[in-house]
């Protein structure tokens, strides 16, 4: 059979629906559906993957025993560690460092710089990464970073917007730290030489984000994370802080009495392990999109597999808010090559409207993410007003041509070059045609609990960035997580620097905690061959896997 004929990237039958979108476009230009009332929000949220029946169970071991969470996450917490004491020789230490940082996204890299800035010598810091330094969610952030700097904005407003969006579950002291440090972080980025979008008069271009009451979003075209990360990594490299790549941490080490004292790294190419001894350890491993919770596609990078939460739980750290998962309303649903990829919220804040197959605008474009995503699921699976792709996915239109109608010709090329480029590769011109979208798994709302300095409930262990929990409550607002990584990366760097200065006890390295963990698993009657952390997802073809043998073992 011949391949399906495409016109401007879309098959004929999808073109028919696009026609309807075109017909209603000018009418919709000045019309925005009203925002939901709190009751309406509550109702539509029943369709959210977090609340729809199934998908969850109760955790049966550890400090959070009894808490409810996604099955995919609990499967990893209720799994056996990758290594035990008999597998490794802990008396042979490869790296002895003051501060070990695990994960080099924005959070880990910022932590390294600020530990150095706070007086720790570069040689006493070690940044380790699973893949390359930069294969991270950080580099993919598109939309922007929040900071309440404009005169009509305030820390109070930023706090209120965030806690309302987080369903009032946010931890007040860490949230206060987030909003408090935000303007300083923007200032720091400028000093490092980051190029943030400006108006003619030199003011920042500040955009709406879903759930904000003020325009507060600072962006760098639609490459915000790329620009922030590139600059911070360049600064990190200029300081010549030691960094090793392709060395995931497979287990933390403790002194046997509850203090973290290092980690076991694993060369992902050769299989050799390395032992690190450290006075303070910062986990900055990011999120868990690659677990494909509830079977959703994801926006996350390849290594987003929840490792940090698993490692922290092994040593007894307390978690929080792991029951909620953020699905971004606008993931690409077509073409198949880019399914799940993010289409930034900034498209909607710049005028793109969600529209159903009949060309009707059906929802306020900037509801909080969980509400907006639920309304798309409703439109597709309850009202049956979605468009089905050739591969059977459903989606609704995001009417991107409205952006230029509202902001003038040339606006898309200037503000969304990344998006243009991505669709161009599949012959779709987003200036002329809408794009098909459906919710995609985006962000780990909860994680390891901390104090305002990134300190966990376990001595010697800090966390920063997406791996942490508390600051975003049960739902993160756009632009608050790149901010979170830099605020708490910096704070963790400063706090660990302080800690190591006054800490000279001899450190014992053990895997006692894995013994205890295994005992808990056995006591809870968990019989499984699951092991965690998983480090990477597996997308290999099933036919190949069925015929795979290993002759070197």
């Amino acid at each position, binding site marked *: *059979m011949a*391949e399906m004929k495409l016109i401007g990237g879309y098959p004929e039958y999808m073109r028919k629906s696009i026609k309807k979108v075109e017909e209603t476009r000018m009418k919709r230009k000045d019309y925005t559906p009203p925002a939901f009332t709190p009751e309406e929000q509550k109702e539509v949220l029943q369709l959210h993957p977090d609340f*729809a*029946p*199934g998908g969850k169970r109760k955790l049966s071991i550890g400090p959070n025993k009894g808490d409810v969470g996604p099955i995919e996450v609990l499967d990893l917490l209720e799994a056996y560690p990758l290594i035990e004491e008999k597998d490794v020789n802990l008396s042979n230490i490869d790296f002895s460092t003051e501060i070990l940082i695990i994960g080099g996204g924005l959070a880990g890299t910022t932590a390294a710089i600020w530990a150095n800035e706070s007086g720790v010598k570069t040689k006493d810091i070690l940044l380790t990464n699973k*893949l*390359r330094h930069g*294969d991270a969610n950080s*580099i*993919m952030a598109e939309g922007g970073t929040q900071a309440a*700097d404009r005169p009509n904005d*305030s*820390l*109070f407003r930023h*706090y*209120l917007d965030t806690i309302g969006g987080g369903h*009032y579950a946010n931890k007040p*002291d860490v949230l*206060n730290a987030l909003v408090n440090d935000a*303007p*300083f972080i*923007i*200032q720091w980025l400028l000093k*490092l*030489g*980051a*190029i*943030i979008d400006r108006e003619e008069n*030199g003011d*920042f271009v500040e955009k709406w984000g879903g759930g904000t009451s*003020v*325009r507060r979003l600072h962006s760098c075209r639609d*490459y915000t994370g*790329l*620009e922030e990360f*590139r*600059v911070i990594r*360049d600064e990190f490299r200029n300081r010549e802080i030691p960094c090793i790549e392709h060395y995931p941490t497979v287990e933390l080490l403790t002194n046997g009495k509850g203090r973290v004292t290092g980690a076991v790294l694993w060369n992902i*190419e050769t299989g050799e392990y390395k032992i690190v001894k450290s006075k303070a350890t910062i986990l900055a491993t990011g999120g868990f999109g690659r677990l494909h919770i*509830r*079977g*959703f*596609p994801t*926006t996350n*990078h*390849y290594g987003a597999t929840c490792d940090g939460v698993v490692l922290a739980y092994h040593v007894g750290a307390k978690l929080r808010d792991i029951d909620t998962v953020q699905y971004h309303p606008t993931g690409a649903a077509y073409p198949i090559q880019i*399914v*799940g*990829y993010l289409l930034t919220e900034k498209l909607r804040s710049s005028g793109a409207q969600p529209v159903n197959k009949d060309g009707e605008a059906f929802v306020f474009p900037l509801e909080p993410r969980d509400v907006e995503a639920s309304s798309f699921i409703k439109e597709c699976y309850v009202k049956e007003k979605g468009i089905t792709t050739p591969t*059977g996915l*459903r989606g609704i239109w995001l009417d991107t041509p409205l952006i230029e109608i509202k902001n003038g010709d040339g606006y898309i090329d200037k503000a969304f070059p990344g998006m243009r*480029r991505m669709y161009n590769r599949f012959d779709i011109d987003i200036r002329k045609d809408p794009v098909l979208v459906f919710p995609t798994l985006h962000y780990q709302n909860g994680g390891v609990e901390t104090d305002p300095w990134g300190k966990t409930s376990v001595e010697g262990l800090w966390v920063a960035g997406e791996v942490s929990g508390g600051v975003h409550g049960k739902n993160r607002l756009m632009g608050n997580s790149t901010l979170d990584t830099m605020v708490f990366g910096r704070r963790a760097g400063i706090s660990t620097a302080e800690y190591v200065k006054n800490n000279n006890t001899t450190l014992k390295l053990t895997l006692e905690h894995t013994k205890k963990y295994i005992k808990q698993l056995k006591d809870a009657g968990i019989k499984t061959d699951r092991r965690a952390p998983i480090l990477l997802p*597996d*997308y*290999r*073809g*099933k036919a*190949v*896997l069925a015929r*795979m043998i290993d002759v070197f073992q």
Partner: protein
Amino acid sequence: MNKKMNIMDRIADSAKSVTTGVDAKDIEHWVTIYVMGRAYEVPADLTILTAMEFAGYKFVRGVGCRQGFCGACSTIYRKKGDYKLQTGMACQTRVEDGMYLVQIPFVPAEKAIYDISKESYDVNAILKHYPEIARCVSCNTCTKACPQDLEVMDYVQAALKGDFKKAAEESFDCIQCGLCAARCPSELVQYHIAQLARRMYGRYEFPEPDYLKKRVKEIDMGKFNKEMEKIMKASKKELVKLYAERERESD
């Protein structure tokens, strides 16, 4: 698809080729690609990255974001019967029949070490750290190699002239994949040069807006402490009320 399944299961079912890997039995159109010379039959709809996974490769290098941002999956390829050597990102390039390909997951390139706060904002900063920039022979190979379709040669020339604005703007979408440097006959490291140019431009061209300076100072002086302590202690009920009464800035 089973109509009786609940909504979540229907969604998961429709996305399974993306979340668990492609199943050969769902595929109609196939092409042959040659990974480092060896032939594999792969679904025509896949990218180089997902096609290689389909063929059995589990990546531990040469992949990162999977979405065209991180520059980890640089690939060079040639199509059967074509003399042209092409470049692309494995996660962003669709497979084509008769593609011979290899990944370049790492480019050995020297990055200069500098302190951005101590550089002079003129062309000397570039010349001092990357003197080889003067060796550019304007062959335009870098531009042709760039998977982001950037005018690489132009930004190099701009940097050489000390035109930071142009160098920064033209190179802004660079994902630092290294393909330009791997191809350059004069052995320049275009993307590191661009990084220096952008940081110079960002730092020295744009003064901090006054309102930002003012806000940071207010925070330092503790101007908002009282207000923040109060809201940190607010009950959920109070917060719900405050949230509902928020005034939205007009568009």
